[in-house]
């Protein structure tokens, strides 16, 4: 080839040169395109838009999805006797390069990423300050769930669900729902707005069009009458003044599609591309569930709603039904087993049978203090966060890894004592002892949760690299008050090749006593020509040997400074 090019050059004609140039361009194009193709296939380690904080799962039109509501029994059977979904020790698949969850139709970063005022946390999803039922009409019955209630429509035509407390435990379920909704909203989940209100049965107006799907007549619709209202009220806690404290839940916007599952993806939803058991926010819901004893956190207590504009619809995923959290069993004080053992767990059952009941499950020995009936059965002494269980196995919970739990625990760490108290006060317990006990118990459980899940892995967070090359970071466990400062830190700096993913050591391991260190000049100076820096940071703590496993952090040059672009724990 070289000789051919040489003889052509000797000829020196323009046309030959053009042809040659065209040939070269063509060959080069093939080579370059081939290179581009290789790059595209291999994918850079970090994309230009990393870290991604918005997962646009409303991008494809999901108008064709059909509503499917799981049967309670199916959810129990499939999760108890089978292992649906993929049980694999796999990093959560929807986290961004900072190991965080981007905003999506499933989750919105709230207290976990941005500071929320106490008022914001307490307000939760509520769109208005308070609700009065004056002028509302009963517009139908409530066909699902065990909690007594019915539907009412306000003057503007918005429909709400009205639910009551059980007579033996006034304020129990309504309080749980109010508190649970505020917490889950602040965590970042989509929830419906709920309010406490007062219902005066003497002024109740029933719409002529009020209907009810009566299961007793095969789910057919029939008129919802005064007699039906009375039947509901007989199952409800009535106050001394003859009125009722009720929970008012606004129906979520959009078209209901049934519930989501904690495994797999919806085959008819084009936006649903991450198996639910590998979604960080669903895996880590186990941590939130443990804190609040949300033993009922299962598929059938979720809600999918079709929202959006014409030809541009998507599914918004809600968590709902918090009436059975903390000490509430919705229509009674929570039983002893929930939170401690699955409904069906073979080993303790066989042990009990074989010993004719001599074997006592540990949770049967938990003693609950005498507390106001609004609290139900809720305690913190015997609570072991890592042993906590929902009603039956949850595929996403089963897949939870330490970094998933750490992520959730860090969110919980943002709830200071005053915030927790303010959320409990939103439940407006008539007995101040209920507020006191509930607050104290939640705080003690919170501290146990933080100890359990902030400390098992290296808890270094908030990494920052200044333009001058100073690295600073913090310790989430220390910040939360569940660990003392480490004795020191070991750092390993490297130049990082974003295309190949290869890290080239730069300067060997260094040790520092404080959570700050200087990056090697060979990496940070402009002439160093390093676009990405990788630093691995281990913490040395005698009580937590696992912290010696380093956190790997990546910075990308951004103008004259450095931008945190990646983190793996």
């Amino acid at each position, binding site marked *: 080839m070289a000789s051919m090019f040489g003889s052509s050059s000797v000829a020196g004609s323009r046309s030959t040169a053009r042809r040659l140039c065209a040939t070269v361009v063509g060959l080069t194009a093939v080579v370059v395109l081939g290179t*581009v193709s290789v790059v595209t296939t291999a994918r850079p380690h970090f994309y230009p838009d990393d870290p991604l904080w918005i997962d646009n799962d409303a991008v494809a039109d999901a108008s064709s999805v059909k509503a499917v509501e799981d049967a309670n029994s199916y959810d129990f059977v499939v999760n108890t006797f089978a292992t649906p979904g993929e049980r694999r020790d796999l990093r959560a698949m929807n986290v961004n390069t900072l190991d965080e969850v981007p905003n999506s139709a499933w989750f919105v970063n709230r207290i976990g990423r941005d500071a929320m005022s106490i008022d914001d946390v307490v307000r939760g999803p509520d769109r208005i300050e308070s609700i009065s039922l004056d002028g509302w009409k009963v517009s139908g019955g409530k066909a699902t769930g065990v909690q007594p209630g019915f539907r009412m429509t306000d003057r503007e035509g918005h429909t709400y669900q009205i639910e009551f407390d059980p007579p033996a435990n006034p304020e129990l379920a309504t309080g749980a729902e109010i508190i649970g909704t505020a917490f889950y909203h602040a965590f970042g989940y989509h929830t419906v707005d709920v309010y406490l209100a007062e219902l005066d049965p003497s002024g109740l107006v029933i719409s002529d069009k009020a209907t009810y799907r009566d299961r*007793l007549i095969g789910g057919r619709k029939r008129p919802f009458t005064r007699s039906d209202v009375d039947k509901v009220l007989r199952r409800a806690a009535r106050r001394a003044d003859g009125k009722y404290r009720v929970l008012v839940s606004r129906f979520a916007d959009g078209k209901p599609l049934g519930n989501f599952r904690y495994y797999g993806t919806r085959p008819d939803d084009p936006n649903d591309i991450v198996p639910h058991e590998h979604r960080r926010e669903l895996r880590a819901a186990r941590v939130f569930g443990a804190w609040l004893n949300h033993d009922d956190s299962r598929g059938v207590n979720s809600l999918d709603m079709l929202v959006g504009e014409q030809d541009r619809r998507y599914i918004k995923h809600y968590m709902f039904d918090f009436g059975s959290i903390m000490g509430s069993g919705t229509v009674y004080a929570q039983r002893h087993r929930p939170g401690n053992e699955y409904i069906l767990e073979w080993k303790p059952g066989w042990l*009990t049978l074989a010993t004719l009941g001599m074997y006592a499950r540990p949770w049967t020995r938990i003693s609950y203090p005498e507390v106001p009936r609004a609290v139900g059965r809720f305690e913190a002494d015997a609570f072991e966060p890592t042993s906590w269980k929902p009603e039956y196995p949850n595929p996403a919970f089963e897949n939870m890894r330490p970094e998933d739990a750490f992520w959730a625990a860090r969110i919980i760490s943002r709830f200071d004592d005053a915030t927790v108290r303010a959320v409990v006060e939103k439940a407006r317990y008539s007995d101040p002892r209920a507020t006191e006990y509930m607050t104290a118990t939640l705080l003690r459980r919170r501290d146990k949760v933080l100890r359990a899940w902030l400390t098992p892995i290296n808890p270094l967070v908030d990494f920052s690299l200044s333009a001058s090359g100073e690295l600073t970071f913090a310790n989430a466990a220390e910040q939360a008050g569940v660990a003392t400062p480490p004795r020191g830190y070991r750092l390993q700096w490297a130049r990082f090749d974003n295309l190949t993913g290869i890290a080239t050591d730069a300067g060997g391991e260094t040790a520092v006593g404080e959570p700050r260190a200087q990056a090697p000049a060979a990496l940070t100076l402009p002439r160093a020509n390093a676009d990405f820096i990788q630093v691995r940071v281990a913490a040395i703590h005698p009580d937590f040997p696992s912290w010696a496993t380093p956190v790997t952090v990546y910075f990308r040059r951004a103008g004259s400074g450095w931008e945190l672009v990646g983190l793996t724990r």
Partner: protein
Amino acid sequence: MKLNRLVPLCLLAMLPFGTVAIAQETREEAQKQQREEKQQTVTPNEPNLLERALKAVETGGIPLITRDGVYAKLGSITTGSGFAYGAGYRSRRLFGSDAALDVWGGASLKGYWAAEARVRFPNLGGGRFLAEGYGRRSEYPQEDYFGLGPDSLRSAQADFQLRAQTIGARAAMRVAPVVSIGGGLEYYEPRVSDGTDKALASIGEQYDEASAPGLSAQPNYLRTIAFVEIDSRQPLNARKGGWYRAELSHYDDRDLSAYSFTRLDVDLRQYVSFLSERRVLMGRVAASTSETASRQQMPFYLMPTLGGNDSLRGYRDYRFRGPHALLLQAEYRFEIWSGLDAALFYDAGKVAMRRADLDLDDLESDYGVGFRFNTDNGIVLRVDAAFGSRDGKHVWIVFGGRF
């Protein structure tokens, strides 16, 4: 231009394309592409067979038994009837209110049948009063009879047929949250004849009026009832609390003036739980006694009995019969899993021909083990195996009820 300059220039010209090609690819685009690819392959979210089946059971299967309108009647008609099936019509919104109408008819595999109509007003006066009226017709063709008194023999078993019609009404008032008092009036028309079990002697072949009072003729009765009940069970399928009931009935013979009597039944059950209510001790004392005026007799078919799935479980249904009876039961129940309890039990009791003999001497007894599939409101299925009686082993499979 020299070729050795031209090549690098051409390459240089191409580089921006490559660079641009990389820069335009973003994480967001990559994810969008995945979603667009899935959009090409979306499939309907179709429930599988198991899902459809369980959904059908939830929405259709259970209401088939509990629903309003036409419903299926499954279970038993009376003790010893065997499995029964039938159909009924029920409305819990009679007159547009809480009044309930229930009409049903059913037959068992052993040839028992019954039909009943009942109207209930369970929430009169804001729930303080209950009233009901009912009519019932039944035919039990294989009722067991072993003779009267504590010394009756299993080998003396015969059977009889009991046909009856009843019409009556009851009312109760809740005087305190757990205390109810009430009364009722019934017109009862019993008729006794030979049983249909070919394996057994018929009652007429083996017994007479002396050994089976009331066998020769059966009057119609007007029965008046008064009762008091204290029910503090929690929950209804109790783990703690008590259920105490005393019922006094006077049976007035309206035809023969020979079989009038008064009968008192007392049933006291106490439930004590421990280990978070996952262990329950149940104690029960039930006694029945009767009084007859001179030249009056208590007919055998209205005497209290012992034996069967809810009294002396080591003995057959109605194994002991007499004008007076005493039953003592103790159970230790332990939860294996939610909804399944096991139990160890001991039963003792006796019948007596004289009230003075209603003591703790010479009690018949048995012991055993059982399993209960249950809910808070009652037992779905109970299996009890009883041993230790002089009549051998017995296994009971019982659907429904509370115990």
